[in-house]
């Protein structure tokens, strides 16, 4: 696989949200607005690139039987670092994302890519895979957040489009996350077949 196709793989063909359906917990939880979705996506992207890189380096010295705990420790270390850096330099976003940042540790995408890709590939393709998957995740979350924000509170990226009084509140609440995600997956599938 060429480097370019490794990179675009995560964006479209194996998009983590709309195709692989991985990492649904943060997807449904944080996407109440486009900004939150983008913030969560970028934080995950950052962790993905670093963990993929680190794991592609150490994969040969980690015995098979303990590879999962080994990977999790590496991922958890990066997530904690991201968490602290965000609290220090982006306190507003950190407050909005709250509990979901530490939860990146158990996001299936991160461990999934470590297991499926980084442990079998060299450093550069692993980083590209992390970047592609991370950006695919970010784009999907931003899109889902924007749809929910638009339908639910009449805003896109916090800019009012129509009066909030006419928004369908359910789209900002938990059931709306499932509805909007379902619609978006249906649209993606429609275009995939065509």
């Amino acid at each position, binding site marked *: 696989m060429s480097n370019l196709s490794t990179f675009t793989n995560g964006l479209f063909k194996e998009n983590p949200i709309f195709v692989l359906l991985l990492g649904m917990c943060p997807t449904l939880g944080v996407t109440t607005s486009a900004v939150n979705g983008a913030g969560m996506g970028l934080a995950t992207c950052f962790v993905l690139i670093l963990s993929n890189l680190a794991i592609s380096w150490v994969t040969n010295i980690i015995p*098979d039987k303990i590879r999962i705990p080994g990977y999790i420790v590496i991922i958890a*270390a990066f997530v904690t670092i991201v968490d*602290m850096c965000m609290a*220090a330099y982006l306190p507003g976003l950190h407050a909005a994302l709250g509990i979901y940042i530490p939860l990146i540790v158990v996001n299936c995408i991160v461990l999934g890519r470590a297991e499926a890709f980084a442990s079998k590939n060299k450093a550069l393709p692993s980083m590209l895979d992390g970047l592609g998957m991370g950006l695919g995740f970010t784009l999907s979350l931003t899109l889902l957040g924007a749809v929910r924000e638009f339908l639910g509170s009449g805003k896109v990226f916090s800019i009012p489009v129509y009066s909030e009084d006419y928004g369908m509140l359910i789209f900002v609440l938990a059931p709306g996350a499932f509805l909007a995600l379902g619609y978006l997956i249906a649209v993606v599938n429609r275009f995939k077949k065509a």
Partner: protein
Amino acid sequence: MGKKLASTFGNMLVVLFGVTLLASASVAYVYTLTKEPINQARLNKQAAAIREVIPGTFDNDPMADKWSKESEGGRVLEFYPAKKNGETVGTAVKTYTQKGFSGEIWLMVGFLPDGKVTGYTVLEHKETPGLGSKMDVWFVKGGKGDITGRIPAENPLKVKQDQGEVDAITAATISSRAFLDAVNRAAAALQGDATSYDSTSGATTSENTESN
């Protein structure tokens, strides 16, 4: 790719120990780097909240002149007096309620020396987005449930559903009650009326209490 290390007990022990050691070392290093900025960000947020709820100018540092009162369950109400030429022109009170729809709500409420509410900011809440979360704009000056200018110490604030005078947030009466509870608690504690509000207990000043 090259050959993997065999899964013998010795290998596993050494590798897992090495991985955890490296990971904890790097986390500890970043912790020391970010400790100061995190603290600073929190102080900035606090200072911004105080400035927002106290109108007009003051020449002291309310954060330095802070005093506090213990409340139930070890929670601490904090008072930040704003002074001009040594005279108190207003006090920002960091207050809370446990009556929220989900979890605690923490507010910073500003009072004039005569007990009038000047404004507030929501520091922390977990209310429903789109319903209870509207409290950050609902009770402000000019908002639908405007509480500024009222004196909760004389006349505790209540929502209209409880024969009070404040309009509750549409479809979020519980959050509105909780919000007013926090404001009333702050007002009662500020007046020094320590016993009447819940178990808000004696005036113990403590300098080093940081609740967050």
